[in-house]
């Protein structure tokens, strides 16, 4: 082992508490980054599986560019292309399975196949019973289905059993006539039914969702793909089903946010590491002096400290990866139940992609080494003579004033950027303010603690002054600790600001757009993809129910605008306007609803406008199954359910004409004034029973659902805020422990001249409170622009919320600061009070 490594290991193992605290700081940041990156890919994969269904082992899949159904004759056109061996039409839909009857699967891919052509494309070896035959596809045939043996076993059904599936008419019962040996793609259970049955179940008319094809054995795959593309034109996509790009983008955004939060945690860890290494350098001045005197070069000294930081980083990162794995397993366990309940999504596991490893290891090691570089370089710069002198002023303090000015300049520039108007400039401004405040923290320690110590001295009359003096004698160390606390507190304020504004805004959306007496929505809250719509008869039955005054429905189809998949929601402007409305923006109002009755008009939600850059009055082209069409935005409005995704609203007539969609995915209903609500509800429940993929809510229940959802989100974010504050607790603890150790002799002297153990304890607690006060004060100041920035950034994405000043966040931040100050002081204060006077006086 090299001398540098040996020294590093022995120094680290010699100071166990400090090493543990410093290591914990790294562990925590790495755990957050690695753990969260381990949860998201699994969730994303499961989501994509759910949305995409399984393509299976075919050479080519054709879908429409807008992901909307298309005429079945396209299969014949594909089959005619030279080089294509066989092509078959497919109608594929993922259905969210109702909880009753319990088939042990949350979702199922129902694949409508043409028995005449399907097996040439995808061989299906029979395991039991028989395959689907052409007679099953006849108009009067009994509904039949086949499934892979594994799926049938999972669902607990066997050949001859009936299976109830959600469909546009409510439910459809099919009989399992056979099982096959071909394995289903991982995480996706498929049930095959005759094409005509699938088209009827999902109200597709004679349209299909895919064409699957295989090539001739000798065909040039690329040439055949190109030939198919040329034959079909731009309206079709070759290769696979279009991914649910919006959700994928959502996951990528979530991953980016979590990485930023993880980086913040590591940055706080960086301050702890910085403090530790500054202390280490101060402690080892004599060692450094001796080493320099005996011939160690500056490079050697730098190398010694960097080796120690590398070792510390490696240990912390290693443990952080381990903790991250545990964290990911825990979080995915917690989220699984929650998300599956919400979306009827497939199971998902913990997946660590290579970039998660690279990010976690790179940042863990990088931040540790980076934080150690400044003290290490300072150590290398110390002349042997300076190092050997018995008492030296802190070299770091010399630069404090210079750094404070630089910090002030950054704060001024950062504050100016807040008012430029662009979100990017505002984000940069926030970062500059945080960096500036960190740079100036050492200088701010004295004035802030001079002010805050008055309160402490009022309580701890005799000890408060000593606590203040102790803190102010090493402003560099106090400043670094306060910076870590500041980041924590700023994040707490930011998160509370975000939740207050966003959840408050969402509540307003919910009230305005779904605040009807009754609501029928799919189990899957996300409207696109897996939801099976209901045919018009559902709404008709509700309309015909006694006591119902008005009904409005929402219909769904996908489309492509500027290469991006968007939702098209079809509403009947007149009936929708009677019982609900949008949360209007861009100067739009209820009057604009009526304009949707004109052809070629849409109302766009904020998310759509944010992502496309289009606004009221603009014209754009949208890819529909009927080809490219031009639309004009006649209003800006958001509804609660679809606010998260880029959405345009068209009239249901337009949706039927251009997309061929006549199924409802949401039904809103208002009761007549004076109607017997309970009776109305009972009648609606009877109807809802026939549509198991739908759930019925009255306004109070719906309110409860949204309140629960918001409460869960609020709890999640509060937990996140608390977790992000943990490094500040470590920073305080680390600094106080270092301070007590460094002042051992002084504490011995104080005890010798009459200080009681209680007084010594109070000095440490007082110091902790003062230290926290600096961080909290700075964090409150830095947190407000951060919270404004986050809300503004969300608004830029199209989710428009009024900013709510985070008073609760401010209060929470102060409470967290005080609580952490007390917690952090507990152990060092106890150690200090327990010191043996004689031994403390002899301590070197």
């Amino acid at each position: 082992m090299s001398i540098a490594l040996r020294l590093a290991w022995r120094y680290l193992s010699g100071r166990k508490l400090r090493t543990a605290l410093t290591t914990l700081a790294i562990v925590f940041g790495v755990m957050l980054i690695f753990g969260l990156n381990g949860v998201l890919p699994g969730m994303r994969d499961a989501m994509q599986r759910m949305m995409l269904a399984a393509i299976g082992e075919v050479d080519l899949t054709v879908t429409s560019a807008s992901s909307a159904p298309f005429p079945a004759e396209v299969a014949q056109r594909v089959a005619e292309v030279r080089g294509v061996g066989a092509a078959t039409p497919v109608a594929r839909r993922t259905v969210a399975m109702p909880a009753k009857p319990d088939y042990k699967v949350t979702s199922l891919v129902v694949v409508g196949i043409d028995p005449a052509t399907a097996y040439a494309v995808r061989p299906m070896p029979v395991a039991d019973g028989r395959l689907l035959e052409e007679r099953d596809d006849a108009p009067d045939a009994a509904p039949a289905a086949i499934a892979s043996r594994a799926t049938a076993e999972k669902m607990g059904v066997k050949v001859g059993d009936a299976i109830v599936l959600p469909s546009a008419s409510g439910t459809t019962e099919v009989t399992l006539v056979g099982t096959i040996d071909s394995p289903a793609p991982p995480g996706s259970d498929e049930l095959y039914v005759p094409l005509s049955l699938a088209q009827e179940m999902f109200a597709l008319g004679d349209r299909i969702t895919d064409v699957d094809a295989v090539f001739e054995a000798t065909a040039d795959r690329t040439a055949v793909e190109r030939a198919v593309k040329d034959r079909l034109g731009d309206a079709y996509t070759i290769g696979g089903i279009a991914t649910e790009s919006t959700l994928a983008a959502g996951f990528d955004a979530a991953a980016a946010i979590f990485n930023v939060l993880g980086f913040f945690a590591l940055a706080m860890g960086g301050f702890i590491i910085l403090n530790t290494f500054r202390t280490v350098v101060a402690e080892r001045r004599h060692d450094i002096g001796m080493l320099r005197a005996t011939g160690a070069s500056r490079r050697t000294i730098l190398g010694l400290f960097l080796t120690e930081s590398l070792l510390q980083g490696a240990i912390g990162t290693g443990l952080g990866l381990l903790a991250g794995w545990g964290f990911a397993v825990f979080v995915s366990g917690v989220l699984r139940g929650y998300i599956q309940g919400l979306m009827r999504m497939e199971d998902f596991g913990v997946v660590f992609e290579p970039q998660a490893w690279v990010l976690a290891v790179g940042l863990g090691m990088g931040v540790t080494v980076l934080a150690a570089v400044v003290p290490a370089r300072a150590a290398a710069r110390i002349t042997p003579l300076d190092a050997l002198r018995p008492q030296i002023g802190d070299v770091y303090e010399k630069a404090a004033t210079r750094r404070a000015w630089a910090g002030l300049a950054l704060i001024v520039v950062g504050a100016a950027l807040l008012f430029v108007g662009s979100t990017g400039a505002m984000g940069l401004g926030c970062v500059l303010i945080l960096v500036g405040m960190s740079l100036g923290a050492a200088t701010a320690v004295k004035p802030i603690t001079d002010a805050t110590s008055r309160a402490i001295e009022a309580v701890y009359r005799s000890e408060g002054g000593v606590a203040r003096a102790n803190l102010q004698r090493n402003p560099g160390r106090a400043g670094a600790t306060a910076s870590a606390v500041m980041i924590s507190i700023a994040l707490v304020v930011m998160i509370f600001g975000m939740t207050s504004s966003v959840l408050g805004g969402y509540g307003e959306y919910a009230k305005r757009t779904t605040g009807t007496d009754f609501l029928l929505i799919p189990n899957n809250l996300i409207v696109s993809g897996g939801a099976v719509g209901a045919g018009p008869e559902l709404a008709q039955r509700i309309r015909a129910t006694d006591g119902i005054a008005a009904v409005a429905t929402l219909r769904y189809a996908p489309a492509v605008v500027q290469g991006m998949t968007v939702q098209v929601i079809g509403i009947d402007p007149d009936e929708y306007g009677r019982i609900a409305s949008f949360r209007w923006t861009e100067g739009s109002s209820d009057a604009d609803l009526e304009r949707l009755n004109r052809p070629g008009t849409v109302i766009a939600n904020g998310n759509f406008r944010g992502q496309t850059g289009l606004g009221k009055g603009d014209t754009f082209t949208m890819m529909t199954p009927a080809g490219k069409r031009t639309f004009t935005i006649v209003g800006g409005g958001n509804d609660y359910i679809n606010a998260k995704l880029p959405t345009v609203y068209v009239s249901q007539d337009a949706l039927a004409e251009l997309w061929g969609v006549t199924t409802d995915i949401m039904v809103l209903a208002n009761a007549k004034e004076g109607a017997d609500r309970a009776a109305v509800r009972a009648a609606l429940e009877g109807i809802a029973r026939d549509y198991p993929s739908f759930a019925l809510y009255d306004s109070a229940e719906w309110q409860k659902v949204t309140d629960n959802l918001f409460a869960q989100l609020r709890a999640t974010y509060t937990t996140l805020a608390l977790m992000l504050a943990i490094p500040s607790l470590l920073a305080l603890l680390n600094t106080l422990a270092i301070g007590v150790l460094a002042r051992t002799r002084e504490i011995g002297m104080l005890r010798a001249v009459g200080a009681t153990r209680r007084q010594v304890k109070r000095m440490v607690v007082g110091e902790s409170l003062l230290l926290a006060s600096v961080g909290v004060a700075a964090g409150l100041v830095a947190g407000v622009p951060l919270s404004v920035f986050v809300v503004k950034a969300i608004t830029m994405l199209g989710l428009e919320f009024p900013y709510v000043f985070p008073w609760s966040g401010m209060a929470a931040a102060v409470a967290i600061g005080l609580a952490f100050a007390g917690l952090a002081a507990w152990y060092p204060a106890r150690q200090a009070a327990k010191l043996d006077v004689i031994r403390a006086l002899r301590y070197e």
Partner: protein
Amino acid sequence: MAIVETKGLTKVYGSGETAVVALDHVDLTLDAGEFVAVMGPSGCGKSTLLNLIGGLDAPTSGTVVIDGREISTLSDDEMTRLRRERIGFVFQFFNLIPVLDASENAALPLVLNGTGAAEARRKAEEWLGRVGLGDRLRARPDQLSGGQQQRVAIARALVSEPALVLADEPTGNLDSKSSEEIASLLRQVSAEWGRAVLMVTHDPRIAAHADRIVFMRDGRVVDDTKIADAASARVAMERVGLL
């Protein structure tokens, strides 16, 4: 042959009215194998002289020649190399690395010079044997007495076979018995092992082990006397008023 030669060596701290002359035109020569003690009241410039000769500090004017090389012309890296190869240091507070054992501490200069670990350890243990610590090779500094720690420091100073050993108050932190032992060991370093030893001390009994005593006052050399034994040392000290 002179191992150390200083000419007009001057060190002034500060400037203008606050300037303090720590060393004032000091000329001093030290031959190979010679043991020289530097004595004088606190603040007379003893330690400054040692630091300038060891290249730990730069003179305001004058020259220092070590082993034929004028050190003021050397870069930081060259000076570091010279210290590593030609000069050994012994400090008042031992300055051992607390987390390394005796053998590892003594081997440090060789390890820093790139010598292989086994070879460095072998040489270190050989020197530790010579200074009487052959049985405490694996002991950490906190397991050794003050005298033993200083022996480790002396072994460390000698392990790279330097021409010159600089000792700054090497007995200042030891009891009288250990002080005598360390002084005898330094005597052995010069007389038997042929190194020039320049030692700063306050203690007349320790200085009496040297071949020569240089007396300083207010940054100047006021007396430079060869001594034969403790009695002649006593006479010299009385002459300059130290006793």
